[in-house]
C-alpha cells in the first residue's frame, strides 16, 4: 500500500471531504498552502489571530448549515477560545434541546519533543474529556488519522482532532479508498497475554518498541490504542485487562485527573475487570510539571519506551498480596 505521513493523511482526508461536500470550509490563522491552492481563499480562510472569534464563528456557521473546520494549530492557542469551546460548543446542542446540529471540526496539535517549552508543548486533552458534549480523538498512525478525520468531518457534533506533533512526519500505509473509522472503537495494535498497555499517539509506537524488546524475554504485551478519547471504547480496554490481568497506561500528558486516571478508574470500578486484576495499575506519563525547554529537562519529563518497559516489568512483578 502507498505510504503517507500522518500530516499528509490529515490533509488528504480534509481535501477529499471538501471535494465531496461544498458546505465544508476551513479557518485558521494560517492558510495551508495545498488546501488553499485547491479550494481558494473563500473556503480556506486565513484569519486574524483570534482563535476565540473563529471558534465561536464556527458554531454560528454550523448552526446555519455549514460544516466548518477550525484549525487552532497548536492546542495552546485554543485556550483563548475556551469559553467558546466549553460554554458554547460543548453545551449549545444540549441547552437548546437538540433543535439543530453543530457539525464542527476543531484541529489541535499536541505533545512535546520540539523543545519549544511550556506554552508550546501541551497535551491537555483530558481537560476536554472532562467537559460533557465534545467528541475527540487522537490517532497514532496515518491510517487512523485519515479514517478518524473523515468520521469527524461527517459527524454532526463538535469534534476535536488532537494530533501528535511528534508524529507529523511519520509515515505509514494509507488506503486510497474512501474509508472511515468509527468513533469509540479501540484498535489492538498488538495482541498479547501477559500485560495490557493502553497507549496514546506517539506512545503507541514507544509501547510497540517496548513490547518487541520484552518479547525476547518471553513477555507477551497487548497494546490497546483507544484512538477516540470521547467516546472511549471501555469494553475493549476492560476485555484486554480481563485477559491479561495487568495494566500499564502510557500517556504523553501528565497523570493528574487525566486520561490515564480515567482508564485506571474504568478498570477498577468494573467488577469483572477488577476481579481479573493481578497487580496494581501503573501510569507511565509525563511528570506533572510544565514542559521545560532544555533538552536534558524535556527528555526527563516525557515517558518513552524505556519507562514503559520499566512500567511493564513493575506490573509483572506486582501482585495481589495476602493483605486482601
Amino acid at each position, binding site marked *: 500500500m502507498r505510504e503517507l505521513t500522518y500530516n499528509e493523511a490529515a490533509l488528504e482526508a480534509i481535501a477529499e471531504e471538501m471535494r465531496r461536500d461544498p458546505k465544508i470550509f476551513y479557518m485558521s490563522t494560517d492558510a495551508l498552502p495545498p488546501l488553499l491552492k485547491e479550494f481558494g481563499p473563500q473556503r480556506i480562510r486565513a484569519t486574524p489571530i483570534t482563535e476565540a472569534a473563529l471558534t465561536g464563528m464556527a458554531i*454560528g456557521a454550523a448552526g446555519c448549515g455549514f460544516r466548518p473546520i477550525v484549525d487552532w494549530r497548536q492546542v495552546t492557542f485554543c485556550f483563548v477560545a475556551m469559553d467558546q469551546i466549553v460554554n458554547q460548543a460543548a453545551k449549545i446542542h444540549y441547552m437548546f434541546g437538540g433543535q439543530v446540529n453543530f457539525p464542527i471540526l476543531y484541529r489541535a496539535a499536541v505533545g512535546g519533543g520540539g523543545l519549544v517549552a511550556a506554552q508550546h508543548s501541551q497535551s491537555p486533552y483530558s481537560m476536554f474529556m472532562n467537559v460533557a458534549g465534545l467528541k475527540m480523538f487522537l490517532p497514532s498512525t496515518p491510517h487512523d488519522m485519515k479514517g478518524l478525520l473523515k468520521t469527524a468531518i461527517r459527524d454532526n457534533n463538535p469534534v476535536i482532532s488532537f494530533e501528535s506533533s511528534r508524529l507529523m512526519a511519520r509515515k505509514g500505509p494509507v488506503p486510497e479508498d474512501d474509508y472511515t473509522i468509527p468513533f469509540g472503537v479501540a484498535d489492538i495494535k498488538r495482541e498479547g497475554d501477559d500485560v495490557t498497555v493502553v497507549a496514546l499517539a506517539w506512545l503507541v509506537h514507544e509501547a510497540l518498541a517496548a513490547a518487541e524488546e520484552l518479547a525476547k524475554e518471553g513477555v507477551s504485551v497487548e497494546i490497546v490504542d483507544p484512538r477516540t478519547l470521547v467516546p472511549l471504547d471501555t469494553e475493549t480496554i476492560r476485555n484486554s485487562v480481563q485477559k491479561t490481568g495487568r495494566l500499564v497506561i502510557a500517556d504523553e500528558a501528565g497523570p493528574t485527573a487525566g486520561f490515564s486516571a480515567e482508564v485506571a478508574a474504568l478498570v477498577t470500578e468494573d467488577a469483572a475487570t477488577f476481579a481479573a486484576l493481578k497487580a496494581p495499575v501503573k501510569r507511565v506519563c509525563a511528570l506533572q510539571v510544565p514542559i521545560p525547554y532544555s533538552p536534558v529537562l524535556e527528555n526527563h519529563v516525557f515517558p518513552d519506551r524505556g519507562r514503559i518497559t520499566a512500567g511493564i516489568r513493575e506490573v509483572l512483578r506486582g501482585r495481589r498480596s495476602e493483605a486482601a
Partner: protein
Amino acid sequence: MPTSLSPNLAPDKQREMLRQMLTIRRFEERASADYNAGKIYGVVHCYIGEEATAVGVCTALGRGDRIISTHRGHGHCIAKGADLNRMMAELYGRQTGYCKGKGGSMHIADFGIGMLGANGIVAGGISIITGAGLAAQMEGKGGVAVSFFGDGASNAGPFHECLNIAATWKLPMLYVCENNLHAAQTSAAQTHALPDVAGRAAGYGIPGIVVDGNDVFAVYQAANAAVDRARSGGGPTLIECKTYRQRAHTERKGQADPRDKAEVDAWMRKDPIALLERRLREQGELDDAGLQSIEGDIMAALEAAIAFAEASPFPLPEHATDDVFSA
C-alpha cells in the same frame, strides 16, 4: 441623538411594533410574577424598558435574517417572532418548551425563525452570530445577521475581534449595542473610558451610530439603513442604542440595585412604549379602543401560553441524558 421622524411604515406596521413591544412587556411582567411564585426557576433577566431596541431592529429584518441575544433575551425572541407558548413552557421547565426544559430563560433559541439563542455568557453570542454573518455571506442570498449585546459586553474581547473580522471581510452584519448604562451592579461610567461605544467603530473603518434606543422609529431607521448597507455588500455597522432597564439586573427579590434614583426616574419618563403610544395617538393611528384591542389580544395570547405551559408535562428524568450529542 437624532430624533426620529415617523418612518415610512404603514400604520398597521407601526401598530404591530406597539403590539410586539407590549407583548414583551406583558410577557415579562408575568414571567417575573411567576418566577417569584416559584413556577419559573433559576434566574430571569427582564428587558422591560428596552423593548424599542429589539422591536426597532427586528422590524428591519426578514424571516431569513438571523439574530443572537444575551442573558436578557425574551425581547429579542418575541421581536423575531418566537412562539409564546414554547417560550413560556421553557420558562416553566416543560418538555414542550423551546429547549425541552434544558435551557430556561437564559437559553431560549429558535433556529427556525433565525433566533440563534439567548446566551448566559456576556459577549458569548458575538462570535457565534458573526459566524452566521459569514454563513449569510457565503449563502449569497442577501441575508444579514444581528448581534445584540450590552454595554458591558462591548468591553470584552469578542466584540473587538469580531468587529475587525466583520469589517475586514465585509460581513453583512449589525452589531447592536444595547447601552442601558449599567452592567449588573456597575455603571458604564465606571467601566468605559468614553460614554459612547459607537465611537469604537471608526477604528475598524465602519459606521458607528448612536440612536435613542427608546425611540422605536429611530432604531428602526438606523437598523434599516444598516441592513441595506449589509445586504448590498457594504459590510457591518455598529449601532448603539441608548436605553435603560426599568428593573433591577435580575428578578431575584432583595438584590442590590445601586443605580441612582433620579436616573431611574428620568428614564421611566422616557418609557419606550408610552412614547410610541403617544406618537401613534398623535398621528391618529391609535385610540383607546385600538389599544384595548391590542392589549386584549396580548393578554389572551399570554393566558394561552400560561395554560399551555401549565398543561405541559415536565420532561422525564431520563431525558437528561438525551441531546448531549446529535445522531
